């Protein structure tokens, strides 16, 4: 989706400190050249295929379909990307752009750690130095991802300011970029931030929607009737939705993190239910969760990757125009959807992606059986083993960890 000088309706723009201006302009120029360079685009495609394993399949779910008794369910399997999430699409694109620009160091922020792992992987593959900022609270929730980032050679910096989540990590990444704007590239992980990030990340992710389009025509002969995606920053949603933006017959549904409920600090609902309001922060204008003084609020989600205070200006705009319908799923619905997919189809979705499943499960029973619904499984759930074990109150997990620790301490 092409922006109007970095704006999508009333959202987007480039509200950054002056120190970053020249570097942001250089990125804008590099991106504008690369996006129309067929050699560059071919190189991205090749790497998506040979390194990340694309195309990812569109998987029919006969058991879930039978159980729900409504529309036919298909899953877009971004969990089968290398690294286990759609984040790989973006880091391949930006990583190759960094090489093209001749920079040697990348900076990344990460929430759940998926973008951090993806950044560390691409940095290793392309020979780039890599520093990753991650909220200290998120590190506690997702240490296994931190472990892999470090094993891959990245430097992981815990961010202990503010709420110690994704938004604080993003602020800290901006501060790092300010210290070395011409030498480092800020490899932003979602379709947020100053121009050209929203447009560029959404474009690198649009491979998801382009594949869904071709696979739908091939597998069931028409376009899908509805597409569901979870919305944290919004990159997997933008990626699967944008290639269908002009197909009015395709309903596009974004699912935000309803968390524990609508009280401030208990959720990450920016667009649905009128909980967010327009603001300008972290480099761009969008709908933010904020108080009456314009202070950004704390957020919550069972899925660290959705625990973000702002949202892609592209999705904020598509919500404004009504092209995308936004809704939210709460933590309990998400766990129910997660377990349904495990038991019925043998697929372990990320808790982030389980929000999309939860949103779809709510609507599908009322839809006619000839309708086709595609749900974006943006990532796999293996990383969530600790959170899930805790949520399902697995009796053996705690004792297993204790025995493991005892053995390690002895060794």
């Amino acid at each position, binding site marked *: 989706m092409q922006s109007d000088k970095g704006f999508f309706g009333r959202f987007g*723009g480039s509200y950054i400190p002056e120190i970053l201006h020249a570097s942001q302009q250089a990125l804008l120029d590099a991106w504008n050249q690369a996006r129309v360079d067929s050699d560059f685009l071919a190189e991205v495609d090749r790497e998506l295929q040979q390194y990340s394993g694309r195309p990812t399949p569109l998987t029919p779910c006969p058991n879930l379909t039978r159980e729900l008794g409504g529309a036919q369910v298909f899953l877009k399997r971004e969990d089968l990307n290398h690294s286990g999430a759609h984040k790989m699409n973006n880091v391949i694109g930006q990583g190759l752009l960094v090489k093209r620009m001749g920079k040697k160091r990348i900076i990344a922020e990460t929430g759940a750690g998926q973008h951090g792992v993806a950044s560390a992987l691409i940095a290793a593959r392309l020979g780039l130095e890599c520093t990753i900022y991650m909220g200290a609270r998120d590190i506690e929730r997702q240490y296994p991802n931190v472990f892999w980032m470090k094993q891959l050679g990245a430097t992981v910096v815990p961010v202990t300011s503010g709420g110690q989540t994704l938004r604080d990590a993003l602020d800290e990444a901006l501060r790092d970029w300010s210290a070395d704007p011409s030498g480092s590239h800020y490899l932003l992980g979602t379709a947020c931030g100053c121009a050209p990030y929203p447009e560029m990340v959404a474009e690198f992710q649009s491979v998801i929607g382009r594949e869904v389009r071709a696979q739908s025509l091939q597998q069931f002969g028409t376009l899908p009737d509805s597409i569901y995606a979870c919305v944290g920053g919004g990159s997997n949603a933008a990626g699967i939705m944008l290639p269908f933006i002009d197909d009015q017959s395709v309903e596009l549904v974004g699912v935000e993190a309803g968390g524990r409920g609508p009280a401030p600090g208990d959720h990450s609902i920016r667009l649905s239910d009128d909980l967010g309001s327009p603001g300008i922060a972290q480099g761009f204008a969008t709908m933010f969760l904020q108080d009456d003084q314009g*202070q950004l609020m704390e957020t919550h989600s069972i899925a660290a990757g959705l625990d973000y205070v702002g949202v892609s200006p592209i999705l904020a705009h598509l919500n404004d125009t009504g092209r995308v319908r936004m809704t939210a799923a709460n933590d309990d619905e998400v766990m129910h959807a997660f377990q349904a997919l495990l038991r019925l189809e043998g697929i372990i979705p990320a808790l982030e992606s389980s929000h999309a499943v939860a949103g779809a499960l709510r609507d599908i029973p009322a839809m006619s059986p000839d309708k086709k619904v595609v749900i974006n499984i943006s990532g796999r759930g293996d990383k969530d083993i600790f959170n899930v074990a805790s949520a399902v109150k697995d009796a053996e997990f705690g004792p297993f960890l204790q025995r493991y620790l005892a053995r390690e301490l002895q060794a």
Partner: protein
Amino acid sequence: MSKLQTFIEQQRKEKPILLMTHVVYGYPTIDESLALMRDLLNEGVELLEVQFPFSDPSADGPSILHACHQALQQRPTLARCLEDIALLAEDFPASRILLMSYLNPLYRYGLERLPADAAAAGIAGLIIPDLPLELAADFRHSCVEARIEPIWMLTPETPPARMQQICDAASGMLYCVSRRGVTGADSHNSGNSQQVPLEDYLAAIRATTPLPLGVGFGIRTGVQVKALHGMADIAVVGSGLLDAFNHGGRSAALEQVRSLRG
């Protein structure tokens, strides 16, 4: 010529350099921050920069970031901040007060009405680090109407053409960021790429504009301030003062200011 520029030039006739001291409104409490501001104005600082805290101050380093987050515990409002500044401006007509904040709290208050309200409170200028010149047409217009100066920033990364553009648009004074990175002591690796020496950078700005130049970021000793004599008109001290305050309270902050005068 703007009132702010006239004030700075008159002050500069007798002094080799002026001081702009920075205080976070509401840190550690609203009353204590106001008491520190009064101390500084009593001490005769020519310019006081009041930062209205924001939850996500992306151009600030650890000292000011921490102070902003602490200040927010007091739930400060911009309306009350303007009222408090109005009292200071009335009591200290020999100094000038500037208001600094990030865009979002000001946007929430109303970027169109802020210049008039700030001017009515006796504020001479507004500093908004994340509002770039090219997205500020309406704001600049409101500032002209309210006769208050939007203070633009230049950095060592600003290319010559853009420097010219910003200088042409500026009035009152310019805020020259001394180096890459964020406010306070260096906290991030500044990479391998060479930085322009400060004197060359300031000389290039001086050759572009006759406006008074303030220099900030990382300025915290009398030696550094003295080194700016002849190259700049104002030394801006923020994190250094805050660190002194955190170390020894208001008296330590005042001592720090005296040591900056050399």
